[in-house]
């Protein structure tokens, strides 16, 4: 979904359209979630910061000055709340341990039999890609985690979420994806 469509949904929600709000939340939830997860918050804390971010947007529905930039507002708010949560409680996960546990739960013998071969291969590739991703340095991991939750080809959200200039995001992304490709090549995944 592009920024225009997002802006339209948001304006409709601000005018009182509950269905528009629902679509808007569904479209931008991955962004908010990716920002909190990129800051290393485990699921419970990430959930709380995610909720605070959305509740605050709801309070401010009539006050957002630039509806086209609401995705940046969300990224900035999620970042600020995540940083405060880290300072207040210092609970961080070094890697994405929750995701590892979830994948391990799914890999029962029964599940492997039931899954079609294609699905199993795709799930396996996702899992190994995600594992390689965890081996990236912290900065690359953080950047890519936010980019993959943002609207495609849009860097302003990541810039806001990381406190960096928009111009620095493209080159960093290129470098980090190159790193990831190297890690995948080492694992024979090309």
């Amino acid at each position, binding site marked *: 979904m592009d920024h225009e469509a997002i802006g339209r949904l948001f304006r409709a929600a601000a005018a009182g359209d509950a269905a528009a709000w629902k679509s808007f939340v569904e479209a931008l*939830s991955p962004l908010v979630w990716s920002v909190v997860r990129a800051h290393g918050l485990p699921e419970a804390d990430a959930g*709380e910061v995610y909720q605070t971010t959305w509740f605050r947007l709801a*309070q401010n529905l009539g006050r957002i000055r630039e509806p086209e930039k609401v995705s940046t507002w969300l990224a900035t708010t999620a970042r600020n709340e995540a940083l405060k949560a880290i300072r207040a409680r210092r609970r961080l996960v070094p890697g994405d341990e929750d995701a590892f546990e979830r994948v391990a739960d799914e890999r029962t013998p029964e599940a492997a039999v039931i899954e079609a071969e294609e699905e199993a291969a795709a799930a396996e590739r996702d899992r190994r890609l995600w594992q390689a991703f965890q081996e990236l340095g912290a900065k690359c991991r953080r950047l890519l985690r936010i980019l993959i939750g943002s609207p495609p080809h849009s860097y302003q959200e990541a810039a806001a979420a990381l406190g960096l200039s928009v111009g620095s995001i493209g080159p960093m992304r290129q470098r980090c994806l190159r790193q990831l490709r190297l890690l995948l090549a080492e694992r024979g995944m090309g």
Partner: protein
Amino acid sequence: MDEDLSQDDLLEAELRRAAAVLDPVPAHLVRAAVEAFALRGLEAELAELTFDSLEEAAAVRSGYGTRLLTFAVAGRTVDVELSGGEWPGGEGVRLLGGVHPAEPAEVVVEGPLGSLAVRADELGRFSAEGVPLGPFSLRVRFSDAVVATEWITV
């Protein structure tokens, strides 16, 4: 270089899909955000967070410590002190609050799990125990206005 760019786009798309499978937004959280539409607070004035001790650069904490907050709107402020809360916070935190200028008021401590009603006395003081960690807002009913503080994460 174009070849590299489309490789980048492909890899990012695969990673995007892996994240959607392995670290999706929990469904109950999306529902909570959708239901938050009801929080747009049509009748309440919004008191913004104007001070948060957690933003002080020198803050060094272990566990929860004490956090000072100030919310302000239209000539009124609500000061909040949050303390206690043994980590991992089964007991919640203790709240001491004050409204300025001082006047009695009804104060509702709101969070996603429910709300807790307390009263501010004639000196504007109020308190609460066991405030759960997570999203937090105060709804203060004065004689002439209702004020809601900006949501924060306790």
